[in-house]
């Protein structure tokens, strides 16, 4: 008998007050059955007021701690509320809520612990050189084909939720997340998804942050496979 699990949509957000109403509206239009949780990572643009008006579940803190911390807190909160499956997507509107169905369908397979929505899996016009190089490195280390190592569009099953609620990598964590899940024996699959430009505003990833993230990823590629497995 197939177990019906409650599904939570988790959206980490930093200064996305302008985009959140449209993102939430699209989610409610496409999947009214999913509950929505936004984690406000130290926004200074009045995101909290927007969240109160939108009537979604939310949590947050006053200073920026990084998307990894936001996702970890969201997963922990969701898992305490009894959500066995979590769909994570970005708050800038680049992910199409219609693709959630495809991620969840793949996650329903028995042997799949997490599904990544890849923007480049199906496209002839692939990612830029650096992203392609990063995906190649992550593929080599995880011994699994990864076409989009920086995507923030995930569907996480019960095993992944339980593990990541305690151990989700910090900082700019997407590439490290692949390494971590692989190290701990979780099966990750990819499905192709569409990609749009952010609805408004600019990405908070500055050149300095990108450089720091790249250095961290380089270190993670060496260190994470050498770390002991963790108990969820």
């Amino acid at each position, binding site marked *: 008998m197939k177990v019906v699990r409650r599904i939570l949509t988790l959206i980490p957000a930093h200064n996305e007050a302008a985009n959140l109403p449209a993102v939430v509206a699209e989610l409610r239009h496409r999947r009214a059955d999913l509950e929505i949780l936004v984690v406000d990572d130290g926004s200074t643009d009045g995101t909290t007021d927007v969240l109160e008006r939108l009537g979604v579940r939310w*949590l947050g*803190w006053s200073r920026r*701690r990084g998307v990894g*911390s936001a996702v970890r807190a969201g997963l*922990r909160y969701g898992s305490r509320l009894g959500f066995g499956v979590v769909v994570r997507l970005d708050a800038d509107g680049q992910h199409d809520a219609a693709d959630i169905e495809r991620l969840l369908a793949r996650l329903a397979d028995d042997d799949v612990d997490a599904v990544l929505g890849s923007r480049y899996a199906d496209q002839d016009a692939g990612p830029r050189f650096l992203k392609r190089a990063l995906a190649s490195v992550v593929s080599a280390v995880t011994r699994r084909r990864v076409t989009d190592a920086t995507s923030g569009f995930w569907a996480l099953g019960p095993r992944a939720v339980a593990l990541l609620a305690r151990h989700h990598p*910090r900082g700019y964590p997407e590439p490290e997340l692949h390494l971590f899940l692989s190290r701990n024996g979780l099966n990750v699959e990819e499905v192709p998804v569409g990609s749009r430009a952010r609805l408004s505003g600019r990405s908070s990833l500055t050149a300095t942050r990108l450089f720091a993230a790249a250095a961290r990823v380089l270190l993670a590629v060496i260190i994470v496979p050498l770390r002991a497995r963790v108990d969820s």
Partner: protein
Amino acid sequence: MTSRIQVVAIVGSVWFLLLVLELVRRRKLAEEYSALWIVGALALLGAAIRRDLIDSTASWLGIYYGPTVLLLGLVVVVSAVLLWMSVVLSRQQSEIDRLTEETAILAAEVRDERSKGRRRAS
């Protein structure tokens, strides 16, 4: 014969040792972080009292100029302390992250309960 520099070194080492102990007494320096400083101060005091130890260590290490051993020791101790402090800082950052996340979750749970209470009351 005791030279002036030896007296200064002994006084300086004793003063440093007392300073560390006083900071611990006033609870401005936690006991677990004082150990390396106390060991360092005692090592300095030992080297100041027994100067021949510096010379024999230098000779054993193949260092021609004895006082270089002191500098080498200082660099090793300071590097060890800095590395240790980085470990402590990382641990504390991790704990702060957890506490911040837990506080946010608790605040959300309180909000949920209040909202439920309001719905029941209306």
